[in-house]
């Protein structure tokens, strides 16, 4: 169970004001979807939660991101600890060019766990949670690059789950997948929210409608509206949200 909270967030890339005064609170064991047109800052906001934006030159942040009450941007916070708390699944499946097993075990190994029996157990568990175990249990030594796109994405989810995060960040995880693989990943998310808190960035409004409990609509770096998904889709408060949802712009 994790309490995730963003307080008065402002982000700049050099002179560009990418996120404007955003505050949000996330409910545990829910799926929250970020929607909005390209360049509205939703991915930037998502990547604040595991400090992936730190890699970008000229990135500057004001405000606080609180995970269980701790500001992860405090000085003296260990980056690897922060990043273990928040597992991330990327837009395109990005398995390492290593075996399926080594992919899932990677996060544990870099954190110093080399106990074979322990690893075996965690790898199996993670693959089961990602609904991939039955398909790969006999070929764990095979290169991950030989899997299909959908399988690769579920492998990436398993890889993120293996380090036992509390928060799962998904950056358009199904945008590079075919409809069947997408359906499987969506099913998986509904299954995962029993144990995890999930934040997903998506361009696919139907997807947001199908899987999320809460939806946040971003526009030009501002959080326009954040509410229960049903409310956003059926009866939004702001006209801009209404226009976006109904496809009048975006």
């Amino acid at each position, binding site marked *: 169970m994790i309490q995730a909270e963003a307080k008065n967030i402002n982000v700049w890339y050099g002179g560009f004001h990418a996120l404007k005064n955003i505050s949000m609170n996330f409910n545990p064991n829910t799926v929250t979807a970020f929607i909005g047109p390209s360049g509205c800052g939703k991915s930037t906001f998502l990547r604040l939660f*595991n400090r*992936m934006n730190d*890699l970008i*030159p000229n990135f500057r942040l004001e405000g606080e991101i609180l995970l269980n009450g701790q500001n992860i941007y405090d000085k003296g916070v260990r*980056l*690897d*600890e922060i*990043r*273990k708390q*928040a*597992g*991330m699944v*990327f837009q*395109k499946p*990005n398995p*390492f*060019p*290593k075996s399926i097993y080594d992919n899932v075990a*990677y*996060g544990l190994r*870099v*954190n110093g766990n080399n106990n074979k029996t322990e690893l075996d157990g965690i790898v199996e568990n993670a693959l089961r949670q990602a609904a991939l175990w039955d398909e790969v249990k006999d070929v764990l030594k095979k290169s991950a*690059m030989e899997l299909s796109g959908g399988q690769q994405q579920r492998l*990436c989810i398993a*890889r*993120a789950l293996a*380090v036992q995060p509390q928060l799962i960040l998904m950056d358009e995880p199904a945008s590079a997948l075919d409809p069947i693989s997408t359906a499987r990943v969506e099913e998986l998310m509904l299954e995962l929210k029993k144990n995890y808190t999930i934040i997903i960035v998506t361009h696919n409004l139907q997807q947001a409608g199908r899987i999320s409990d809460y939806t946040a609509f971003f526009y030009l770096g501002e959080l326009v509206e954040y509410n229960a998904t049903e409310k956003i889709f059926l009866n939004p408060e702001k006209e801009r949200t209404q226009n976006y949802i109904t496809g009048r712009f975006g």
Partner: protein
Amino acid sequence: MRKFRDIYEKIIVGVLFSSSTITSLTVILIIVFLFKEGIGLFNHAVVDDNHVIAISSQNPVKDLTADKLAKIFNQDYATWQELGGTKDSVKILTTSTLMSIYTEEQLGANGENIPSKVNEYVKAHPGAILFMSKSFLPADFAGREIAVDKISLKKFLTGTHWYPTSSPIPQFGIWAIIMGTLMVTLGAILFAIPLGMATAIYLSEIASMRLRNIVKPIVELLAGIPSVVYGFFGLIVVVPLIQKGFNLDVGETILAGSIILGIMALPTIITVAEDALRTTPRALKEASLALGASEWQTLRKVVIPYAKSGISTAIILGIGRAIGETMAVLMVTGNSSNIPTSFLQPARTIPATIAAELGEAPYGGLHFKALFALAVILFLFTIIINLTVEVIKNKARKQSA
């Protein structure tokens, strides 16, 4: 109008075709020329057709190999006993000694008495061995000619003596030169790999964009400095430093060559390795970091493995750069044709030998052909290097597919 365009396009195709044909033919021609001249060494008599080596018919010694003959003419033997013959002392008779033994009058104004005097000398000295023009031998010559073995490929490769101009038996053993080349190259690579890789990793992973944009052009500039300038720098700076630092008699050593070659191989290694490192997809690096790996772990476990074929290519191209380099090495390695046993000894490399000696080797002669055979060996080295690069690239292509 249409017809005009068709003709125009045909001309363009024709020009492109002939340019590529000419280029390919030139390359093939060079290779054929190289091999033809090089192989000539092995079908060629060591002593040229107009000259002859002979001993007295009373001399029982057999199996005079080229090596033994070379030693005899080098006055390494006092008597024939060591060679399994009599106690007669070895008397070398060449055109010049003939002149010092007999007066000009005795030999005749036009040298018409030379054959009879040669015969007289051989009869008087059973230990005589002579080397001279065939025309100086009398019809009733009291000695027997010795056929000198041709140079074998094995002797060429494994022979340890490189005396291409010694008379009458030149020696073409290139083992010392091969060893010199390999040691200089090895030293250069040992020096350049750690330095080059560290720089490549720093530039691609750690340095800021601004610093990278300053350093990379400087590194690439290193590749454009003429090798003679490197050689000059080596001679003036590196050689004296080594001489003082290791307290040597001469500073022109393999180490000096290795350092200079290493510096020269750096731009190749850094540029190719850095490009390879930067091809690692950002998504892979982010995936690793997102799992809690540190920058260094990400580098070691994701970036370097992903770029390893490019890194191998960089190293092998660096070796290729080092092995063929001529001028700088010629200037700083001392060019001694002894087999080197340490990095603090002088050595001679294949390209330096060719460059230094080709000018004084008579066109078409044995020495000339031996230098071409050396060039063939160097060519084979570089072919092996290029093939290795291709194999690694193909393997990497298969892996990523």
